């Protein structure tokens, strides 16, 4: 009887302790989910980035290396995709979602610390080349990478995994993952002429896959290898043309 009463007492104490805390925890989770829903709705409807909401959707135009494309400069909108395709398949068009304004601001400040957030052209119009490491490995900025991509004067090599590559990449980029360089190079090597300008990138400035791949390319005899250090993250958030899907 006494044992039963003691057990019941413990149970009561446990429920007295647990029940209100679980209730509070549940409310915290619910509020958290509401914050996410509001944030997503706000960014989707342009509340957080009104300037992005009014923009027309840019579409991917798959470049052909060495051939000037009708796409012209970045910033032109919705043109029909050309039949020509560097890797032989149909291009997939990527819709650029509206961005939270904070993201754009951080990207702009990262590109050009002196620029005022909101003035995108200032960040892009200040290219600066910093030679780094071996003689032919040059670090390039977003502005230069954009220029090379628009003019089709360089081949882009994505050093990230195939999974990340499929989620989005620079138009026309070839996937040579640093984790599986030999296989990637075997697959895409024939599309990389020795005298071509090659721009290698990975996820962001803090990743080192691009540098690894760039150094391996230099070892293989490529002389004009460039490192787009800011990488995919800055490319994506600075409203550049992008492409989705794996290699064809």
């Amino acid at each position, binding site marked *: 009887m006494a044992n039963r009463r003691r057990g019941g007492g413990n149970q009561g104490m446990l429920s007295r302790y647990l029940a*209100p*805390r*679980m*209730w*509070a*925890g*549940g*409310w*915290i*989770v619910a*509020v*958290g*989910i*509401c*914050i*996410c*829903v509001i*944030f*997503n709705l706000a960014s989707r409807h342009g509340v957080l980035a009104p300037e992005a909401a009014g923009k027309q959707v840019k579409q991917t135009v798959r470049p052909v290396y060495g051939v000037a494309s009708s796409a012209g400069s970045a910033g032109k909108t919705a043109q029909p995709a050309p039949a020509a395709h560097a890797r032989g398949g149909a291009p997939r068009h990527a819709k650029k979602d509206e961005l*939270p304004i*904070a*993201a754009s601001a*951080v990207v702009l400040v990262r590109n050009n610390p002196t620029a005022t957030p909101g003035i995108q052209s200032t960040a892009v119009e200040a290219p600066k080349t910093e030679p780094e490491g071996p003689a032919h490995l040059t670090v390039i900025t977003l502005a230069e990478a954009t220029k090379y991509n628009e003019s089709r004067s360089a081949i882009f090599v994505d050093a990230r*995994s195939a*999974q*990340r590559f499929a*989620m*989005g990449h620079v138009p026309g980029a070839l996937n040579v993952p640093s*984790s599986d360089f030999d296989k990637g190079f075997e697959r895409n090597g024939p599309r990389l002429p020795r005298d071509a300008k090659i721009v290698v990138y990975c*996820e*962001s*400035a*803090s*990743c080192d896959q691009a540098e690894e791949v760039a150094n391996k390319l230099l070892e293989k005899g490529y002389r004009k290898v460039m490192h787009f250090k800011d990488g995919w*993250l800055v490319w*994506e*958030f600075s409203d550049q043309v992008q492409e989705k899907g794996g290699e064809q």
Partner: protein
Amino acid sequence: MSALVRHALRLVCQLLLGAIFLVSSIGKFTYPRAFLRSVVDYDMTPMWMSIVTAVTLPGIEMAVGAVLSLAAVAELARPRISRAELSIRIGLDAGNRSGWLRRLDIWVDGAAWLAGGMLVFFIVLLSIALLRGMTLDCGCFDLIGEYIPFLRASKITWTTVWRDAVMLLFVLPILTRKS
């Protein structure tokens, strides 16, 4: 350990843990797609679950961080309190916490349990990834972490696991409060 030191330690842990969760959630909100990519890279859940996690986790982290840090601030911020009230708040008379302080404790406890649960989940996730020999971007604080040395971890290592374990220790003084 005296009641005053224990109480001060609890408030410091509460503030720190709250601030860390807030900073972490802001990083994830600022770079949602980067965070989604990080979650997908762990390759431990189906795609739909990765998306649900990537969409909801920042909000839950923000709510937990807000409750922990705001409660600590609120506990000490009310001006002009009586000596008895002060001794209750600074822990000298913790047994007499009542009214709004007791209700606040329940919310703080709920948030602390959630924070502890999330940290255990992160530790397990990171450990499995490391034991599988994966080299991944942490996704813990995303680019916000690049500006704060302690939080900077572009790739997961065992240091990342230890860092989370240290944060888990912050939960203990909060949950072992006398009230």
